[in-house]
């Protein structure tokens, strides 16, 4: 069901944020049209951001008919539940409650461990610490590598035949992972150590719903500098 002008869907965010990317992929999967509003995340924050998300003042925020929804996983679930064609065919979360629980669990894990590693590794310059963080990163991804067959049930994505909730949760981080690999000259998503994930990553990035939403690795330094620049 395509969004129309009366649907009034806006996404407040910045292109480099994995959390924002999640929301944009979800909207693409549901073929919902929206206005992407780039906001000031560094102080002073954009007024619309502060007004829509007074508790956290963070991106992304989804505005639907003027009502704000905050927190990327909450937003993705909202998108899944709000734009449904009833048949479940364009469902982002799996149909079976146990499969949903597994997908949700791994999304919690990703937000708990993986994102923290991205933020820790980004500014790190000391070689020993970079090595240690890279090792931790690969350990975390190793668990997802192991979980992949059970989640995907032998198919190409964590969600099975199509991109699903967990694909979005993890895939949205690929831009940063590749940017860090380049910037720190390390291998994080090592195809030898993590063959299933490496193949999945290629598949994911080639998807119509993803193309163009994840910035290229060498764009990140510029995007990041712009995001944190004070006025």
């Amino acid at each position, binding site marked *: 069901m395509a969004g129309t002008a009366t649907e009034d869907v806006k996404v407040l965010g910045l292109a480099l944020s994995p959390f924002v990317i999640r929301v944009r992929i979800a909207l693409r999967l549901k073929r919902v049209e929206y206005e992407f509003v780039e906001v000031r995340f560094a102080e002073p924050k954009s007024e619309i951001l502060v007004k829509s998300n007074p508790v956290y003042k963070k991106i992304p925020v989804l505005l639907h008919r003027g009502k704000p929804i905050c927190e990327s996983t909450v937003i993705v679930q909202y998108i899944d539940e*709000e734009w449904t064609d009833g048949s479940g065919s364009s469902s982002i979360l799996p149909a079976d409650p146990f499969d949903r629980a597994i997908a949700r*669990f791994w999304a919690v894990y990703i937000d708990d461990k993986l994102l923290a590693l991205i933020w820790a590794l980004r500014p790190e310059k000391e070689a020993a610490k970079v090595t240690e963080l890279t090792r931790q990163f690969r350990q975390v991804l190793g*668990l997802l590598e192991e979980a992949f067959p059970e989640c995907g049930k032998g198919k190409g994505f964590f969600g099975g035949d199509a991109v699903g909730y967990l694909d979005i949760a993890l895939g949205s981080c690929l831009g940063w992972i590749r940017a860090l690999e380049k910037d720190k000259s390390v291998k994080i998503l090592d195809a030898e150590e993590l063959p299933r994930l490496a193949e999945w990553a290629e598949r994911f990035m080639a998807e119509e719903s993803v193309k163009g939403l994840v910035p290229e690795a060498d764009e990140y330094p510029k995007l990041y500098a712009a995001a944190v620049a004070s006025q």
Partner: protein
Amino acid sequence: MADVKLIGSALSPYVLRAMIALSLKKLEYELMQEKFGEKSELLLKSNPIYKKIPVLIHHDRPICESAVIVEYIDEVWPKSGWGAILPADAYHRSLHRFWTFYIDDKWFPSLVALGKAETEEAKAEAVERVRAGLLLLDEAFVKLSEGKAFFGGDRVAYLDVMFGCFANWIKAAEMLVSVELLDEATMPALHGWAVRFREHEAVKEVMPDSGKVLEFFKILQAKWKKDAADAKN
């Protein structure tokens, strides 16, 4: 139904969430009581990644993380007992989930910080932070309840469960520091909600009284103090 097992203890507010949900659904289950300070084989096997309670085991398959467990219970048994836990429409569901995130991310950690505060100054700061969070939740309650009894309106819903599990933790903290946190004067709506929630048939059955929670809070305090001292050495 020995088909449903819950690993944990009602003294953990996160386990209590699952117990309240199971109670709302009027489901039978086996509580595999964990002893504080020890982790059973079953727990380590069922939650190898976090090694934490609660873990729900259904048809021998483990489900971890309290928010994931409560949504699972609601999805598997949609009409049992008191009925649906998650609100019907997507927007309300998003608000219930958002505030649950806030509670786990900011609010409960501020209550824990109050328990860990050692100086009078630190305690006072911690009290302010807990109260500031409660004021936000009071505001959210007014909006979501629309003048009715619970966050879910007429019925106990997801946010009632996910926040209500702390009702006696708030009382215990108040006894611990001799300061009112959820006070009727500044937060009448939320205060009234807490009283009603504690009295709900499905909640009364499983919620430990604030005296027991206080005892446990003191045990935790001692552990935190020891951990902090050990870390210094």
